[in-house]
């Protein structure tokens, strides 16, 4: 990003509760999330003039949300996409702001991911009609290879063979993220788990178990981006955007599963660009969000983005190193595995809160705005959280990422 580094900031975040089911429309949830993000920033509808969102044919649009809330937009865009979208839209927002297309941009995701259209399913929950296998799906569906757990299981299996990792490697991720969820009143799954709990959980798609998989969730979440000048006038400490990549592609442009190593993903390609733009190295990063649709996806992102070498995650994650108060706290809200699945946006929101030093935790003195850093008492604020790497992705072939910086700590 070079001269755009630190020029734009995340200034507001908000979300609905994580629900299953919501019994609401994606429009209703999106309005709530955007209202909360505006209130969080101290902005009014008249201050917003840009809105973008992403979806997989399962949501409402920016125009519906803006119209409902009386927001007049100069620019809106709804893109198709999953887990590599939040960071992509952050980078996109920086470009729009720099180009003068608008002054303050909302990014949201709204989905009934449990009660509405489920990932890998073709229809809302309930009796399933004969399935149409069209487009790409002609070459997945008649093989019964239709859901992310089944796709990623294929890569995970080869990864185990090639690296000597075991499913206990995956368990370390599940345990760390669940521990963070136990400190997050908003999380759906809060009961701490052990490696043994993970190893006992049932198979979904071998080598992935139930506790390797994210939670299907009904939720909406939003964040707001504006210039640093405006940011300093708002309610929250600004969180600066240091750099980002959007939808970088895997080094080999072939079918996901024809690359030399199927667990060699797009982050391998994006990482030098990301850290180069931000002007920092992996060692400078205090916390990360790691797209944990599965435990396995976190494992290979740590390698792809250079936090450890290829095949080294099995040692890197051992002994709780991804947990708060250890080397590289990951997904401090509990992530998709434990807080709820939002296609990536909620992990970015958690990073923003951590960088503001305003993690909305269960800490007994949080009502007074004080963090005790006492984990047993429920505090999940990281003591020295200044730089966060947000590692998003959609498929093994695409990746988006962003580095954020706070001014406290």
């Amino acid at each position, binding site marked *: 990003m070079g001269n755009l580094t630190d020029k734009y900031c995340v200034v507001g975040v908000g979300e609905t509760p994580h629900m299953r089911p919501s019994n609401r429309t994606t429009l209703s949830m999106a309005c709530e999330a955007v209202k909360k993000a505006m209130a969080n920033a101290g902005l009014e509808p008249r201050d917003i003039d840009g809105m973008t969102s992403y979806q997989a044919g399962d949501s409402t649009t920016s125009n519906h949300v803006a119209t409902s809330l009386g927001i007049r937009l100069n620019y809106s865009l709804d893109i198709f996409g999953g887990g590599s979208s939040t960071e992509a839209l952050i980078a996109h927002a920086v470009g729009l702001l720099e180009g003068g297309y608008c002054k303050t941009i909302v990014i949201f995701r709204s989905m009934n991911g449990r009660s509405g259209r489920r990932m890998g399913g073709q229809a809302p929950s309930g009796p399933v009609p004969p*399935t*149409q296998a069209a487009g790409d799906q002609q070459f*997945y569906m008649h093989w*019964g*290879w239709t859901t992310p757990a089944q796709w990623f299981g294929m890569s995970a299996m080869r990864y185990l063979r090639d690296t000597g990792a075991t499913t206990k490697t995956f368990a370390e991720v599940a345990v760390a993220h669940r521990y963070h969820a136990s400190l997050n009143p908003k999380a759906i799954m809060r009961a701490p788990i052990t490696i043994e709990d993970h190893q006992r959980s049932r*198979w979904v*798609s071998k080598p992935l178990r139930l506790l390797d998989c994210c939670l299907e969730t009904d939720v909406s979440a939003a964040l707001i981006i504006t210039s640093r000048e405006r940011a300093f006038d708002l309610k929250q400490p600004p969180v600066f955007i240091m750099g980002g990549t959007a939808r970088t592609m895997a080094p080999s442009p072939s079918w996901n*599963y024809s690359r030399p190593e199927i667990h060699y993903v797009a982050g391998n390609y994006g990482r030098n660009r990301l850290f180069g733009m931000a002007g920092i190295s992996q060692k400078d990063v205090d916390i990360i969000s790691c797209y944990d649709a599965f435990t396995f996806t976190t494992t290979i992102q740590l390698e792809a983005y250079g936090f450890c070498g290829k095949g080294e995650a099995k040692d890197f994650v051992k002994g709780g190193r991804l947990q708060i108060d250890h080397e590289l706290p990951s997904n401090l809200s509990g992530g998709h595995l434990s807080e709820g699945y939002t296609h990536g946006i909620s992990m970015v929101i958690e990073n923003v809160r951590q960088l503001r030093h305003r993690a909305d935790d269960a800490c007994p003195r949080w009502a007074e705005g004080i963090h005790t850093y006492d984990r047993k008492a429920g505090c999940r604020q990281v003591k020295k959280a200044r730089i966060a790497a947000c590692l998003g992705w959609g498929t093994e072939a695409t990746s988006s990422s962003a580095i954020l910086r706070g001014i406290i700590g």
Partner: protein
Amino acid sequence: MPGAIDYSRITIVPDFDTAEWWMGTKQHKYLVRQCKSCGHKWFPPFPACSKCTSMDLTWFETAGKGVIHSYVVVTQPILSAFIETVPYVVALIELDDCHEADGALVRVAGVLLDDEEAVAMGLPVEVVFEETKEPNIVIPRWKICGTAENTWKFTE
């Protein structure tokens, strides 16, 4: 052996890019896309060559033999067609006779006729064309057709 797949629950919708591929399976041919300009081969049949951008394409008929590169064991059916099938193995297969322009072997995937107990990475497999009640569709599946050294099997 895994249970039957209920193909009446899946409607395949061939299109401009794929219709000939499905014609191929009816004739018990396993086709991959090939570029007339540079010879690159790939699967699934996307409509342009990723090496030279040519859209002047042909088909390469493989012998339908390969080696299991990876696999996943599906224990939970998502689509109704697979309710009777679980548990079943989806294998990623590296074709013996079919490589991309840079030498990487082209990979395809499919449901094995074999059980999980039999599967291992490195084992040779061959294609089996499965007729369905749907007269216009023939589905390729795969079966283990030999032994190999240095195989790798998931154990837990």
